């Protein structure tokens, strides 16, 4: 499964060779924009707080990683009536990622640039408004934009239009795991000959209706203290906090990126995805296989990995499985593990690509961003969890792990 043997997949192109990241765009509850987010992540500054977008008093979940923006400051007015909050965040991140890469698809040949995003529930706040109009006032009050403002690939569509990206376009859904799946799919497009792909996920459309739906996952924390609401790997873990945002990555073939003199943040070196067997089947969960297959795909061994960005579910059973998996693959405390998402909440389709962005920034700066200071690792015999303060380290290779509600496991390897 190396890149060099995969020449006829996804499209009719002939490109091959390693795929690298040349640009990042980030929208996170603790920082809008790559550097603002990164400063917050290293400082351990959290974006988790009581919900203010609506009155959460009547709900069992009242804490979130909310990301509020002044849309007019960032986007042309004509886009506002037709976009959900989630899509606005995606458009902001896309613009930053392309600028960061020094690439303008408008200047590129037609069909040379494409987009793959991860989604979860779509533009849900927009959708709630239209459902409200439908049920309270009638069908003829539903917006002409509803058909696409809510739908799952809306971010791909709007980003492709704004930046004239006429190459391959797609959207994947596997909850948190989808972010890594989207990056892998875009890598395939690059290997098949598309010059530039924008990939990842930006999600989050917090409204009463989405909150109630998410609550029914049974995995959200009912805590009211923002600092104690999402404590992955802690003995007091009681679920997670939903959040908004994510990251988009610019991907190119390494040879082409070098040729145009682009700055290279790292290589997407390996990937795998697996699925958990039906609960009660007695078969082993798929997480370990996802990790091992991703390492094999990158043609490395566990010893080559310098840091792991954990899925960090914050649900005791799931934390235990992940800690045991990492201990089995890397040896007890065999590799530093971190979960900067403890400062943002879990971002649905956006969380995994934000972890990839964090990993790449960590490789760049030789530093591991910490897990929230409030976390006291209950699995200290199994994993070396970096908490409270960043840890400086020479980092060459990072593994990112993501699990999606319903049984999805994905793992991705990046290296310098």
């Amino acid at each position, binding site marked *: 499964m190396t890149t060099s043997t995969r020449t006829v997949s996804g499209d009719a192109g002939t490109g091959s060779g390693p795929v690298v990241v040349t640009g990042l765009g980030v929208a996170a509850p603790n920082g809008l924009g790559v550097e603002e987010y990164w400063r917050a992540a290293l400082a351990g500054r959290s974006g988790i707080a009581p919900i203010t977008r609506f009155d959460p008093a009547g709900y069992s979940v009242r804490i979130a990683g909310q990301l509020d923006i002044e849309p007019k400051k960032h986007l042309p007015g004509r886009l506002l009536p037709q976009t959900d909050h989630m899509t606005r965040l995606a458009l902001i991140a896309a613009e930053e990622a392309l600028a960061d890469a020094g690439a303008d698809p408008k200047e590129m040949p037609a069909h040379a640039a494409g987009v793959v995003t991860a989604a979860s529930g779509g533009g849900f706040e927009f959708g709630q408004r239209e459902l409200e109009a*439908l049920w309270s006032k009638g069908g003829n009050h539903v917006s002409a934009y509803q058909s696409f403002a809510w739908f799952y690939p809306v971010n791909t569509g709007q980003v492709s239009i704004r930046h004239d990206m006429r190459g391959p376009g797609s959207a994947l859904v596997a909850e948190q795991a989808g972010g890594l799946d989207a990056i892998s799919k875009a890598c395939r497009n690059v290997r098949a000959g598309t010059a530039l792909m924008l990939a990842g996920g930006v999600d989050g459309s917090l409204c009463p209706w989405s909150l109630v739906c998410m609550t029914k996952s049974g995995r959200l924390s009912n805590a009211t203290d923002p600092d104690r609401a999402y404590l992955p790997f802690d003995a007091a873990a009681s679920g997670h906090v939903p959040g908004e945002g994510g990251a988009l990555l610019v991907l190119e073939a390494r040879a082409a990126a070098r040729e145009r003199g682009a700055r290279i943040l790292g290589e997407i070196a390996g990937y795998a995805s*697996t699925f958990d067997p039906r609960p009660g089947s007695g*078969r082993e969960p798929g997480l370990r296989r996802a990790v091992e297959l991703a390492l094999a795909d990158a043609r490395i061994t566990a010893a080559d990995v310098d840091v792991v960005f954990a899925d960090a579910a914050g649900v005791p059973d799931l934390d235990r499985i992940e800690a045991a998996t990492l201990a089995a693959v890397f040896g007890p405390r065999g590799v530093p593990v971190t979960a900067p998402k403890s400062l943002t909440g879990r971002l649905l389709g956006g969380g995994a690509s934000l972890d990839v962005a964090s990993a790449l920034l960590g490789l760049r700066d030789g530093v591991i961003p910490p897990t929230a200071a409030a976390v006291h690792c209950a699995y200290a015999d199994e994993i070396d969890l970096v908490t409270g303060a960043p840890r400086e380290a020479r980092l060459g290779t990072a593994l990112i792990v993501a699990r999606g509600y319903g049984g999805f496991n994905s793992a991705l390897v990046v290296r310098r």
Partner: protein
Amino acid sequence: MPGISEQRPREPRRVVVTGVGVVAPGGIGTKQYWELLTSGTTATRTISLFDATPFRSRIAAECDFDPIAAGLSRREIRRWDRTTQFAVVAAREALADSGAVGEMDPHRTGVMLGTACGMTQSLDREYAVVSDQGATWLVDEEHAVPYLYDYFLPSSMATEIAWMAEAEGPVGVVSTGCTSGLDVVGHAVDLVRDGMADVMVAGASDAAISPITVACFDAIKATSPRNDEPESASRPFDRTRNGFVLGEGAAVFVLEEYEHARRRGAHVYAEVAGHASRCNAYSMTGLRSDGKEMADAIGAALGQARLNPHDIDYVNAHGSATKQNDRHETAAFKLSLGRHAYDVPVSSIKSMIGHSLGAICSLEVAACALAIEHSVIPPTANLNEPDPECDLDFVPLVARERELGAVLSVASGFGGFQSAIVLTSPGRKAA
């Protein structure tokens, strides 16, 4: 250190269709589906799933779906949205048809499903409950059903099918609006070609005949208001066409690596020889009149299949029967297929089973596989007055017998997505 991949042969892995399952308007199961399509009968009618009286377009192609008769338990019916129910029933048929059950290694088996609208019918219905018919923005958590997160995430149906198929390889959902059903097959094929799985259960499902969907399309006048003549309302390529007719349904395939299928002596419907997608980067709903992006997707799919335009024996059109789509598509065929566009038969089965959004492209791929299998081209129903701007051979009204070596199916959707897929006959010598 030698990587696992270095032992892998450099010959690209080929992917074939070895099982087909269908839930469609006019019938459950491939047999009834094929009978409907080849007889040129239409399944479009007045909406019966809810009271559509207040809406502009009150017609749809509905499935006569009895979940109990289809083998679902009461518990499943209560928990699963109609979209999931369709997908499960179609997947069961596909798996049984393939004969692969018991011969699939769970670690090497995956599931990919497409959908445009996911569990919209349940979300629509439950919203009315928790909001007291839209009266309160702060919806009531206490009255919410426990399945809401499964309705929130369209990937929940992939979970159900993965459990059913005992698949522990790559699993997920591809959602690209009305091209979902084609893109999901392409994506699943890529995963097999890349060596990530040997068998993929892949297809698409949508059951979006609900008030919010009907209202959405009313708002942009995309659907046909020909409420007095529901049976003949979907008129692709006809001068009198005035929009698409909403549909619902599912089609699921067993896609298998060629050697894997050959070793177990599987029946092969067709090989998926090429696919590609493009964004038009133009509009979330509109199409450029030149058809350039669709043409480019067709060209890329043909290139991957190593075929020339004249190798294509049949084109399954998107043919949604909106004014702009049918013109756009005609232009795209001329641009990509050249003179052959005028010779090759092109038809739209949406004339019979309506436009089931994300599901339709998988239903169309199923029609292509069955067309190859039976050497019959399904017709375009309701095509009585050809539009002079759509001047190709659209196979009006009556099916045609013809040996099919290679067929092309295309799709166009909101978000600007344009996709193409090429299927070849197992009897055809691969390039």
